[in-house]
């Protein structure tokens, strides 16, 4: 039996018995600073304008992509509960003022707040987490709108038709979210390359 002294054991453990693991090597990482609330509000304004004009010509089985939902979820994951919650409230008010008749504000607020809750548990740049959160937020917003229409406006029997639309909208939103996240990653990569 080979006798080992303490210094030898420490050295072998530190170097992994002579094998180097690339994953343990230090990597350059960019510290990402979340945008200010003013910038987020400006982005939300642009999202609402684009969504209510240009994106209306793109539909999948009657459903339209919701940039507002994607931006809310991204804000939630990146900036936390408070910013996403307030942004959701402001976006919902704006959407209702542009024709939602009160069906959007609660849903957007809840969606923003819920996405913000995820930020303490998950890595905000993870694509699967982002897409799952976007799909969840789409259904949450749809469900809130359905409840307001059912209870507040007295419209009955909408669930079946609305639920189909949520599914298609979730698919579209996930596609938009994936493209947006990939574009942001490429842009960050290019910035690093230039630096």
């Amino acid at each position: 039996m080979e006798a080992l002294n303490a210094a030898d054991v420490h050295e072998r453990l530190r170097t992994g018995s002579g094998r180097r693991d690339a994953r343990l090597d230090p990597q350059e990482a960019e510290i990402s600073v979340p945008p200010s609330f003013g910038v987020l509000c400006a982005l939300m304004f642009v999202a609402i304008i684009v969504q209510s004009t240009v994106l209306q010509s793109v539909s999948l089985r009657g459903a339209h992509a919701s940039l507002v939902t994607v931006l809310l979820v991204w804000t939630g994951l990146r900036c936390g509960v408070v910013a996403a919650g307030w942004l959701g409230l402001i976006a919902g008010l704006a959407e209702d003022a542009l024709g939602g008749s009160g069906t959007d504000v609660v849903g957007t607020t809840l969606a923003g707040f819920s996405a913000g809750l995820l930020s303490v548990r998950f890595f905000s740049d993870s694509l699967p987490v982002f897409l799952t959160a976007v799909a969840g937020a789409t259904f949450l917003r749809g469900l809130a709108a359905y409840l307001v229409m059912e209870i507040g406006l007295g419209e009955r029997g909408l669930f079946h038709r609305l639920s189909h639309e949520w599914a298609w909208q979730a698919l579209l939103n996930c596609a938009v979210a994936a493209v947006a996240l990939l574009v942001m990653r490429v842009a960050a990569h290019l910035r690093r390359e230039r630096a």
Partner: protein
Amino acid sequence: MVAIASFWDERKLLVFVTLIILACAAMLLELAAVRRGERSPFDQFVPAIVTPVQRAVSLTFNAVIGEIQTLAQAGTLGRENAALRQKVQRLASANERLKDQARENVELQRLLRLAQTKSTLATAADVVGYTPEAARREIAIDRGWRDGVRRDAVVIDDRGLVGHVIDAGGHDAHVLLITDPTSSVPAYLRSTKSWGIVTGTWRRVRMKYIGQDVKIRPGETVVTGRGEIYPGGVPIGTIREVDRKDNALYQTAVIDPAVDFNSLRRVLVLETR
């Protein structure tokens, strides 16, 4: 002593409660305004800022799409030679503009004829935006009560019925499309004069409460019946399929709307009777 880690710390809870109270208050204000047929404070403030931007974006987008189409058409001619290509491109561009003007002219003539046949006053309006979320089917137009647009005014285009005005601001108004499930239009089949109620199903419309003894054929035209809001005889669409059950009191028909709601650009607002 063991510290209890709480996910819902005090600050988050305070923010959550505040946001929910504000959101519910805003929702109740909106719903109350909808029931009264008025605009909530947000509805008066936000469109005043957003509608001009929407209008500018819509016009720019339509112009860009038009130019892209023009360039695509000119691109096929570009193989011949470079000099000719430039000339053809200019001609194609000018031609498209003329075509657009001709199309617009025909459209306006049709609208004018339609307005004259309805023997009522009408206001032409451009569609500047759609509702951002899909739960409601509404459009925003660039005419408001200063232009004579009132609540419950009927909105048509050259192909048929679009919807009716649900609220009007100074320079803009919201129109509830007939594809919205909360919309109800009295209507009848043109051939048999059988009555029913047309409601929206988001993508199409559905005619309910048609008597069981009525024979409905696909392709038949459905028009508005004279009612509290709507004038009679405005085309709504054509029958796509019929849902008839032997044990039901009424039959229902699915209708393809006459109007293409994804490409609405210009509409006519009829004066409220």
